[in-house]
């Protein structure tokens, strides 16, 4: 009886461990996918809202301010709850994945829009004056002259923001998605090995940031640095 129970618990542990590792791998995958999708949303919306925020048209500017104030000024988790639990009351029902990507992405885009605005306003006045003197329409000036310079200036801050976004994705646990943190917690609960699984979670986030986000931002920084420095940075 004693032997059987021992053997049983051994099997149980191995089973839990194997199951947990598979779940953990899936959690990593989910976190990466949501981070990727939400980053695209954050970048696209951040750029558009940031541009709107500096528009010469007052109603557009006001819309930009309201957007930023809302998404930056209220809790991300409460926003996710609204998307997931409140909107269905009004007949708008979205899958957890859609909510995760849009909800996290739009929350972060509020901060991103401010980065975009600061970078656009930071481009030297002389660049705007030269563009006026060459008769550029405003949108062409933005696209060809101002944004390429502004993007270079805003990239390091975007690097920070996207790493923040990655870590913020753990909140999607509350809308039923098992991502990295949740998978680590479940695995730790099932096996009792809290040290191991939370160590894995800790390094997991670090590695995703270091291996996926940082290299992309660095690569973009190099790309947009042409002409600003005599030698491209390493």
């Amino acid at each position, binding site marked *: 009886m004693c032997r059987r129970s021992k053997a049983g618990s051994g099997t149980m542990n191995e089973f839990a461990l194997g199951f947990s590792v598979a779940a953990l791998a899936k959690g990593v995958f989910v976190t990466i996918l949501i981070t990727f999708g939400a980053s695209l949303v954050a970048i696209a919306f951040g750029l558009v809202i940031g541009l709107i925020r500096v528009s010469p048209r007052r109603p557009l500017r006001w819309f930009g301010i309201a957007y930023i104030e809302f998404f930056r000024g209220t809790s991300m988790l409460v926003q996710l709850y609204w998307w997931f639990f409140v909107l269905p009351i009004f007949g708008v029902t979205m899958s957890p994945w859609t909510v995760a990507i849009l909800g996290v992405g739009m929350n972060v885009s509020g901060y991103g829009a401010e980065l975009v605005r600061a970078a656009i306003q930071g481009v030297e006045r*002389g660049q705007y004056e*030269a563009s*006026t003197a*060459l*008769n550029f329409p405003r949108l062409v000036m933005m696209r060809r002259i101002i944004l*390429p310079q502004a993007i270079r200036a805003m990239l390091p801050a975007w690097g920070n923001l996207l790493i923040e976004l990655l870590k913020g994705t753990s909140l999607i646990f509350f809308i039923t998605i098992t991502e990295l943190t949740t998978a680590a917690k479940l695995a730790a609960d099932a096996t009792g090995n809290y040290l191991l699984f939370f160590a894995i979670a800790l390094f997991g986030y670090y590695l995703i940031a270091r291996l996926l986000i940082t290299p992309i931002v660095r690569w973009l920084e190099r790309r*947009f640095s*042409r*002409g600003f420095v*005599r030698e491209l940075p390493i």
Partner: protein
Amino acid sequence: MSEPMVRFENVTKRYGALTVLDELNLDIERNEKVSIIGPSGSGKTTVLRMLMTLEKINDGVIWVEGEPMTHEQKNGAMVPASDRHLRRVRGKVGMVFQHFNLFPHMTALQNCMEAPVSVLGLPKGEAEERSAELLDMVGLGDKKGHYPIQLSGGQKQRVAIARALAMRPKVMLFDEVTSALDPELVGEVLNVIRQLGSEHDLTMLMVTHQMGFAKEFSDRVCFFYGGKIAEQGPPDKLFNEPDNERTRQFLSAVLEAG
């Protein structure tokens, strides 16, 4: 006599309580070369910036080739110009700045090509040909692929001149274009301007501290003082026997400084 290329009619510019230009009246004839001199704060740079529409004016009208630039005529009344009208008239004017304002993320050639392609809608090949020709003309045929950071101040300013010319303006404005240059680089930029003046049909209006160049190059020199033209005339007259006491004082101070 034909209508002037540019006419400032009672143009006033104020910054808050400060009146920078006080009812300026100034006609510039086609192909005329006019230099504007004067102490700092006299409003001379503001004249160019208003004509380039970088500053709004508070009163008066600016005319380009007989057409109001700052206003347009609607049902017989003068109303402030729409963006479309402004862009059409502004196309006749080009400007070179004290601090070059080249686009740092583009090569010399791209700096010159960008506006002809994306503003005038020229095919890339044609814009490139035009730009290359102009860079050759300013003596930078071998620097087409260089970024601004790889060029000296004098070279940057010559690219800026080529860039403005690529839009085929009728009026060129030069705003203290040699003031930010090391002394030994001033000559190469002035030579390009000199060559422009002699080989092209261009109306040129320049704010300058290079009295020697203004004297040799201009058809007319305007001395600004306190937001008004205190004295104007042919360079020989203005530099050698000015009528106005202010002009005399300014010239002796400037010439003394070398």
